[in-house]
């Protein structure tokens, strides 16, 4: 672009607020827009200059930040090294107390940084988020060291469950996204482990993950109900919804696999409890949410239902060379459903304006198609045909996402007019 405009000196008749930082890409966009406004007569020359003067270019990576980050990394590594090298000479109680000190130290450090950020605005958000993430992770060290120091005889899923609960508590206390991501991931891991601990069949595993997905997506949707986008609660809903989306795609992936595993495959109490919780939160999300919310919750519920059906509709597939008609049918249904759900997420990513959702769904699609093709369709599809198929699917996804985007823009216009 050949915009010649340079941010002029601040115009004196306006009360000059503190200049706000913006990236050079943002400034470039703003300058072009302001030029359009001026050309259309929306703003006069003085106002245009004043608007441009309010922003200063802010380089994302400054020398100070690099040095600070490197310093923190070195201190952190040195501490871990010191603790690891002297741990085997410490008594169980000293070990535990040391972990508690590290954890509380990180919590306090995060709190001091947050104060500083609120007062002076000098602490960048990623630094605060990183320290909070470390604090939530260090809590895990406290839990596991406590168990080790007291010699808990079975390291079951309960320890991960406690870590998850602690991380979630902390995340909501500070309203922090970084510890929340860790907490949600741990909670899902705990639930899957709790179920697989009792029955490690594919049916149970896939159902547990799909159930966790419905709970996560619904809880995320409920965060957005009654709060405006971009405010505290709505922001905390994003990791719930997006990790939930990942779990939906993972659960369906496992359910669609053609292999048979032994295991009772039913009667796991944890799964039934999880399903009951999922039913409650999903109903609430469907009742209270708007149209996009209902689509998002519906996708997760659909994936759970289809996943359970696919898990139960299993053949004793031991040799993939001689598939029966039923096995072929199951494979085609599985692929069709997976493509539909993944495309749903790609479109949803467009509606939610989330690049992560769209790319995640696309990546899941590629992995799924490749695995299914090598596992089931390898007999009839050559590598070339596989690539053409994947390409066609991606183009289809792209067209759908683009149509969704255009419709959104159109609806946006209608809403304004």
């Amino acid at each position, binding site marked *: 672009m050949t915009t010649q405009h340079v941010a002029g000196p601040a115009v004196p008749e306006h009360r000059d607020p503190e200049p706000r930082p913006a990236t050079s890409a943002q400034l470039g966009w703003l300058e072009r827009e302001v030029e359009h406004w001026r050309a259309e007569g929306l703003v006069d020359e003085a106002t245009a200059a004043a608007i441009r003067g309010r922003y200063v270019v802010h380089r994302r990576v400054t020398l100070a930040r690099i040095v600070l980050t490197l310093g923190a990394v070195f201190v952190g590594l040195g501490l871990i090294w010191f603790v690891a090298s002297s741990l*085997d000479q410490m008594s169980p109680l000293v070990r535990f107390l040391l972990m508690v000190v590290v954890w*509380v130290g990180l919590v306090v450090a995060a709190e001091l940084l947050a104060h500083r950020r609120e007062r002076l605005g000098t602490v960048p958000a990623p630094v605060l988020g990183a320290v909070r993430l470390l604090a939530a992770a260090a809590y895990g060290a406290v839990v596991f060291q406590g168990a080790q120091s007291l010699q808990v005889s079975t390291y079951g899923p309960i320890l991960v469950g406690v870590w998850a609960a602690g991380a979630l508590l902390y995340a909501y206390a500070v309203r922090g996204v970084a510890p929340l991501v860790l907490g949600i991931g741990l909670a899902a891991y705990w639930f899957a482990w709790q179920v697989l601990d009792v029955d490690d069949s594919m049916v149970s595993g896939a159902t547990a993950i799909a159930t966790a997905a419905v709970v996560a997506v619904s809880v995320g949707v409920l965060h957005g109900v009654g709060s405006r986008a971009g405010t505290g609660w709505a922001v905390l809903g994003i990791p719930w919804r997006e990790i939930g989306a990942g779990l939906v795609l993972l659960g369906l992936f496992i359910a669609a696999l053609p292999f048979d595993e032994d295991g009772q495959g039913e009667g796991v109490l944890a799964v039934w409890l999880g399903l009951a919780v999922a039913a409650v939160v999903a109903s609430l999300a469907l009742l209270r949410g708007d149209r996009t919310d209902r689509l998002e919750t519906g996708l997760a519920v659909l994936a759970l239902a289809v996943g359970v059906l696919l898990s139960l509709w299993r053949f004793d597939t031991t040799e993939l060379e001689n598939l029966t008609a039923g096995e072929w049918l199951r494979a085609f249904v599985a692929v069709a459903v997976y493509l539909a759900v993944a495309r749903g997420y790609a479109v949803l990513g467009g509606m939610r304006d989330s690049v992560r959702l769209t790319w995640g769904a696309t990546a899941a699609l590629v992995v799924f198609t490749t695995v299914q093709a090598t596992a089931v369709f390898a007999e009839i599809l050559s590598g070339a045909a596989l690539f053409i198929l994947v390409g066609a699917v991606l183009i289809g996804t792209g067209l759908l996402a683009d149509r969704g985007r255009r419709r959104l823009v159109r609806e946006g216009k209608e809403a304004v007019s």
Partner: protein
Amino acid sequence: MTTTRTTRVAAAVVAQLLLVGVAVWAPLAARFTGEEVVLRVEVADTYEPFADAYVRLSYPDLPGEVFPEGEVSETEMQQLEAEMGTAFVPLSPQGALWVGGDVVRDEPQAGPFLRCDDSQWQLRCGIETAYVASGAENDPVRAALRSGDAVAVVRVDGSGHAALIGVEPSS
């Protein structure tokens, strides 16, 4: 705003500490409410037993590995594997010491017993590691552990959870 967040963080830290208590409830309860039993003990690792301050222990009077002796058929093996998980070891007094009986799968009705886990083949009762403070090389506890003259003081609560209180030379 800031003070309320700080209060919330403090409350979360307290709640998190309580949660740790939940995770380690069993050995903690045994430590504070258990009945004291004394068991014969020796080092499990005879190659380099005192490489650091932690020593792996074995109890000659408790059932060791659950692996059956002699030839075992496939079905017997599967049955055994299906059974493995929670294992109970009833304890009975023998002079000043206590000895364990054979592993049972149902919780004993009375008497002190250990609640263990053998899903990893080895019987684990939560008393397998001792911290022996690094002292002189002729430390009496280490000498006793080497020569097999050591006893472990263990507290066992009503539901079989155990906590190792200490290792002493047998008098």
